[in-house]
């Protein structure tokens, strides 16, 4: 009996968010008939794809206990790179590859700095903040500060169309989910997050792993940027401003702990969808901008309060 109760409790704590999501969807469907349509559901997923791809990338970093604040600027930089190639030279592939590589490079620099100075997890916060400023500047310098509209027509302009953003989001989510859950690499990242020193003494090459994690986050961010610029058919050197906080908010709402070692890609996908559904629901119900901000702020807090107290309950309840 007691054992059963514990099992339910632990299930509820693990999937409580799913329940919350379903509840939100039910309530909003009752309030608005436009909400619960296939079109709108795909609409939500499509809107969430960009932040979603960034969020799953940064989840990997967060699982290891670090954080990456530079991904927003990476979006800006990759956006202007791909757009400049698409527009000026009609070289979609080159542009996309270079943009994604640029994201990887930003991640590499982040990772190398943190690895070389043996940065603790709190140091990544300020180092990547410095990177955020610097990379945003690079995007401005590269683009001359200019807005770039796409002329369309090439491969690049197709990526953001139809179901493709959703496909990319789910594809990367599934791949990273499998990597994090079923490969030695993923397990090692979790171990690093749970106890970095122990991981080091167990023969994990911390410097290598740290670098790799930031590269993953950077590549995911620039990939998101390629899709974003295709979707809106434009890029500006400030287009990713503030996106890092949206992505991180999605990660924590999903229930991945910022201290590392706990959480996962699936949770992040849930977090992304919850935030997406909420934003859409508020728009569909015609709630104006400022009340929306207030509600969004509280949602982040409430989700994490529920998650943290759920975990406490679980930890005291597990045998």
């Amino acid at each position, binding site marked *: 009996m007691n054992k059963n109760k514990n099992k339910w409790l632990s299930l509820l704590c693990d999937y409580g968010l799913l329940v919350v999501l379903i509840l939100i969807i039910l309530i909003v469907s009752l309030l608005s008939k436009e909400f619960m349509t296939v079109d709108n559901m795909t609409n939500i997923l499509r809107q969430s794809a960009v932040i979603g791809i960034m969020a799953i990338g940064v989840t990997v970093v967060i699982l290891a206990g670090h954080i990456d604040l530079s991904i927003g600027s990476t979006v800006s930089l990759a956006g202007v790179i791909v757009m400049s190639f698409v527009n000026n030279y009609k070289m979609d592939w080159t542009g996309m590859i270079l943009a994604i590589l640029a994201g990887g490079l930003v991640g590499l620099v982040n990772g190398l700095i943190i690895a070389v100075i043996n940065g603790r997890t709190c140091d990544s916060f300020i180092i990547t903040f410095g990177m955020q400023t610097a990379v945003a500047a690079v995007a401005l310098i590269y683009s*001359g*500060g200019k807005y770039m*509209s796409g002329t369309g027509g090439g491969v690049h302009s197709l990526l953001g169309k139809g179901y493709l953003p959703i496909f990319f989001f789910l594809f990367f989510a599934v791949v990273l989910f499998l990597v994090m859950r079923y490969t030695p690499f993923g397990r090692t990242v979790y171990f690093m997050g749970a106890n970095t020193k122990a991981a080091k003494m167990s023969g994990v090459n911390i410097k290598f792993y740290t670098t790799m994690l930031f590269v993953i986050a950077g590549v995911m961010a620039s990939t998101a940027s390629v899709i974003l610029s295709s979707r809106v058919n434009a890029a500006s050197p400030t287009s990713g401003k503030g996106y890092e906080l949206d992505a991180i908010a999605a990660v924590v709402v999903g229930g991945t702990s910022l201290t590392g070692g706990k959480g996962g890609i699936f949770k992040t996908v849930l977090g992304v969808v919850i935030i997406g559904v909420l934003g859409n629901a508020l*728009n569909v119900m015609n709630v*104006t901008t400022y009340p929306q901000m207030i509600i969004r702020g509280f949602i982040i807090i409430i989700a994490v309060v529920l998650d943290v107290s759920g975990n406490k309950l679980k930890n005291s309840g597990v045998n």
Partner: protein
Amino acid sequence: GGTDQTNSGADTQKTDEGNAQAQDKQGDTEQLNIFFATAFMTVPYAAPMNTAMEEYAKENNINLQMVDGEGDSQKQLDQIKNAVTQGVDGIIYWPADAASTIPVVNYLAECGVPYVVLNSKVDASVQDKVPAYVGLDYEMAGGISGDLALDYLKDGGNVVVVEGVMGTEAQIGYLKGFEDKIAQNDKIKVLAKQSAEWDTAKAMKIMEDYITTFGEEIDLVYSEDDGMYQGIAAALSDAGLSDKIKCVCNGQLQFVLDQIESGVLLGASSQDPSVEGRTGIEVMHKVIMGEEVPEWTKIDCRLITPDNVNEFNGW
């Protein structure tokens, strides 16, 4: 007031004579120092503006220094104070928001360095201290778009609005001008207004959600600027509604011109950042040279239609 003068991209040459005079006056050796305190240097709109200013400065042997106020009015005040300390000949001031201009204008009036306000007006309480303002009449621009809407929706219809950052002079003016016009036809109804904060991606999301909520009930979208229109256009074309739901907007981004030309976009009110920048520094130059300038030099704003689209330079 009555001294308004209009300046447009087409006729910038006519002031070249004035420039020549100014150069004579200052001689070849002495360089003028002009300081440009921008509200936001990193927004895309600022880039062509800066370029145009720099070009003018080069042509006229002016040393132009530009700083980024990052939207922080206090920072702007300090930057301007620093500039005065350095001893510049003139200051071009693009205020972050109207209300915060009071101490800046007070300070500028006191220290005696000639200055010009650019792009956004100052607070009404200090308006009379400002010697020269260069900027668009946003209300008029909104009105131009409003006229277009009025024309398109003769039989009435539903409008949705995508707004810029709330509280900025542009947002207030663009909205008022537009709403005043469409109020003339009481069969036109505004279904919803949301702010996308001048951001393309946000505008796209809002448009998608409008489509979800209202679907083909929408007859017309009003986008307060051209960058946001880009996102709206993407959303409409994704939904296959480009033909059914039409748009009007303000601004002359190259994309907007292309869309007008191809008939997707009904039309737009023009706003050229290069002209704005060039006019700004030109007026500043005149003020330094002691020439008469109007209180408000209005930046040319006309309706762009498929017929006249070739007259405009996109940015």
